[in-house]
């Protein structure tokens, strides 16, 4: 295991949204701060810094992680994906993102980054996911604007579209 020294910075190499990046961080630096303030990817948001609200959720080596409860040094060598990576191309939106837009599944959009990461991962890992699974995944997130219902509707529609796309492929 790598030895870390508290008040020194350590080099961290990881893949952020498919691109290799290198930077320095103290062992105590949170992954959320590292992604946002060191690497400059500000799409990931910080809502509570104690793991409840889910706004900071990112994908780390394919699984979900609260970036506010993860240290940057833990992500050394990892593949990190954030909300910036969901759309197929700049100026376009993914099936899930489009569905959010159609159903007004966001208002202020602050919690949305984390919710999209959780639901995108759910629909990828469990293409057959239905309302129960979607509600279950969404239960790890707080949203103060929408009352959640439109998010559930959007995710269910996205699941259906993705299932159809898979059948056609």
């Amino acid at each position, binding site marked *: 295991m790598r030895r870390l020294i508290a008040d020194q910075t350590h080099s961290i190499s990881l893949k952020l949204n498919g691109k290799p990046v290198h930077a320095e961080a*103290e062992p*105590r*630096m949170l992954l959320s701060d590292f992604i*946002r303030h060191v690497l400059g*990817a*500000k*799409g*990931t*948001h*910080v*809502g*509570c*810094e*104690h793991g*409840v*609200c889910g*706004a900071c959720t990112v994908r780390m080596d394919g699984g979900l992680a609260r970036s506010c409860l993860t240290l940057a040094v833990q992500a050394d060598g990892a593949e990190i994906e*954030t*909300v*910036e990576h*969901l*759309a197929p191309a700049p*100026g376009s*939106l993914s099936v899930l*993102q489009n569905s*959010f*837009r*159609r159903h*007004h599944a*966001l*208002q*202020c*959009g*602050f*919690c*949305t*980054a984390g919710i*999209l990461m959780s639901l995108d991962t759910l629909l990828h890992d469990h293409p057959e996911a239905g309302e129960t699974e979607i*509600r279950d995944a*969404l*239960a*790890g*997130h*707080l*949203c*103060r*604007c*929408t*009352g*959640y*219902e*439109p*998010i*559930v509707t959007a995710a269910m529609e996205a699941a259906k579209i993705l299932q159809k796309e898979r059948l056609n492929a």
Partner: protein
Amino acid sequence: MAFDTKTADVEERIEDGALLSGSAQFIDDLPFAVGTLHAAILRSPHAHASIVSIDSSRARALPGVAAVIDGTALAKVSEPLMVGVKIPIKCWPMAVDRARYVGEPVVVVLAEDRYVAEDALDLIEVTYTPLPPVIDPEAALDMNAYVLHEELENNLGSERTFRYGDPESAREAAPRCIAVKVRYPRNSCTPMETYGVLAEYDPHGTGYDIQANFQGPFSIHPVIARALKVSGSKLRLRTAPNSGGSFGVKQGVFPYIVLMAACARIAARPVKWIEDRLEHLTASVSATNRVVELQAAVEPDGRVTALFWDQIEDVGAYLRAPEPATLYRMHGNLCGAYDIANLSVRNRIVMTNKTPTGLNRGFGGPQIYYALERLMQRIAQELELDPLDVIRRNLISSFPYRTASGTTYDSGDYVRAFDVALNDGRYGELLSRRDLARAAGRIYGIGLTAAVEPSVSNMGYLSTALTPAQRAKSGPKNGAHAAATISLDPVGSVTVQIDSVPQGQGHQTVAAKLVSGVLGLRSKDVRVVAEFDTAKDAWSIAAGNYSSRFAASTLSAVQLAADRLRHRLARIAAGQLNGRPEDIVFAGGRVHLNGNPEASISFARIASASHWAPGTLPDDMDPVVRETAIWSPEELAAPTGEDGINSSLCHSFIFDFCGVEIDAVSGQVRVDRYVTMHDCGRVLHAGMVEGQIRGAFAQAIGASLFEEFAYGPDGAFLAGTFADYPVPTVLEIPTLDILHIETPSPLTLTGAKGVGEGNCMSTPVCVANAVADALAPKCGAVDLVLPLTPARIAEFLDAEPAAPEGYQPAAPTTGKGLTGRGRAKVSASPQAIWDLLMDPEQLAAIIPGAHGVTQPSEDRFSADVTLGVGPVKGRYKVDVALSELDPPSSALLTGRAAGALGMGEGTGRVSLTVLPDGGTEIAYEYEARVGGKVASVGGRLLDGAARIVIGQFFTALGRRAGGQRSLFARLFVWIGDGK
């Protein structure tokens, strides 16, 4: 009717592309100047304490720290915040000499980065002398209560009585008087994004340049400018392009604007501060808690002929602007949806050692309707009437309607809305559901609520808190302008600037739709700029995102500006098309004469003409490059000499009913069905209206069942995390049926009225009424306090099953008091254990987390100890005094611990008894109390943490006394039963 979202207008939002792809810019995403310092705030762990001294020498010496600023330094460059009523208290944004609530800023550290700034906080030593905390609003009014502000003789900030009609005669004439007393708790809509401020100061003339996620009202701008001792023009206040929700709450960032601006001036460097969640929950802002006694004079059929309000409003430690607005916002609506001509009001504002209050969605409505609608249900109960009949008999039936206290309800059809709701919402089915459930022995009830939702606040309503004489002296205040500017650039494209400072409500989309419709363009051709800049935009004190003013007010200004612009462009086009301006048609991005679409000119050509060819304009016409409209509803007059006040312009109507079931074992309340009927005037965007209703409803479910900013009796704040302040997730939100009727407001250009706050007003009391109905067969009339948690409901249910034999109930505790006791057996003799316990060197090895123990005198020990409670790990200075020493049998320990994360004090007794095998049984019991950050975020974990630490202590003691670690298993028995 319910809107069919498949066919209704649910146009997609312009805002969403950036928000969904992570490119939207919030305050913490904005670029900042090189050399910017990052602020962290040390906050008071005490509810009430004098600040004796602040030693920041170690913090200043920390590499990376640029400045350490306390209240004394702040007071040199600023003035206290203005107070809305005429009392001489000093509202500083950071404690000066005395801290009056847990979480009040005490010191700001500015450093190269936030991590270093927070490190430095731990190095500051503040010496406090605790003062008696004043927590309960009624007790705070007691003659003997400790006074928070030395400038006052008591804790009463303001008292006013009002009388409209002839309430006393009505009461005398009425056969019945029915009353309720309710206590509305503290809560908040807690936006997901916390506060943020970027502040710069230019000493050479331009003054302060601030960016913040402030939401308005901009009547606060002069308060900030005056506190910073500059003219308004030297205070440029800008908002970020996006804000992560507000719900009123981000009004409360303004004291931090003053604080960070002053810090930037003192440090002569730009300053950035982003609030964390603990800070936000503890000390940002809260809705007011209120004690209300409400009495009605009632006819036998349930008709109310007079209301008597007695309200005690707890605004926390300071009467901070714009308070006492929460109390007076609803002053014109005190009879709700009911036709009641006689009204008596007594309003008292009290200050207590809690976080200062401010705007919060519903703003004054939840407090009013919780009393009024609980009363309506109580009337039905006492007169044995159907609560539906009591509501129906009292509903206002003709419009416009003038309320007793002077507000005009602009439009409505309450009776129709009520009837449509009962029919389309299938009220009859709900009654059957209740019958079936009750027949099966289940606890089921139905609640009803009628409410009027005011919108577009009269900026003069607050002056109702002053007497007519005081108002005459300070001059009349009234009105509520809205401003919008539409600009045309050299290629004829259109930009709209609005004054509504949206926090996620999609204002750009709706404004773009309106303007594009007027000018014959596509929505996407119109850019709407919503970030706000006091240095460049048209604005007034009424600007901002509050009192649901956008659809009714700001959009009226947009409509006005668009109409005027269209009129002027039509004159230019008429000249070029050889027609009359009134015949010009704007459609499809082109302009033509009515009936002759073939001969058309592009909109861009007409719109850019003033830039390129002013010579082609009609002779008497100024160039058309921008149009600013200020819309001002004249109905919003100043309070009258008789204290009549038209407190808001528009009035929406809500009628809700719901069914709830209570779990007989756990006491948990489950909302089975909820129907909400709205009349918000003309619906401009069905998707957004539904979004507002669902969002407010979810927040109201939180306020009804889960959320409370709880305080201990010592003023400790007990809800510092989202685990202690449980905001509902998707799993807690019941299904909601939304219904609408539309009675457009005749007073706004759009016909729209507010819709964003209604369910925050109606839902908490509707759920409470349903719970009261559910409990009624067993308990009769009940007094309910929100949130309706299982623990509170359990008090009304059957007694718990008998405790198992041998169970000792825990001693009652108050606040975050901890008590516990236990026994441990070790192999060493009592004398050996005693010697260990009296030896500082040995104790240093035994006490978990100790960094050394000293013995300043025979019977005193001091130690530096690192302790972790849940997520909060910190270093504390611990002092323990020994007394009642009976070596080697027993001792009494009295201890006190203090650190950056909080403090605690307690007593413990240790007794040593020799066992037959020569070993010792150590028995202990303790009682302790904790406060500060550790109580706010670790409250739930304290018992467990205490047991772990004590367990570790005796493990270490046993190990040391027994000599070897391997003996531990044999020697040590842990039988604690800490509670």
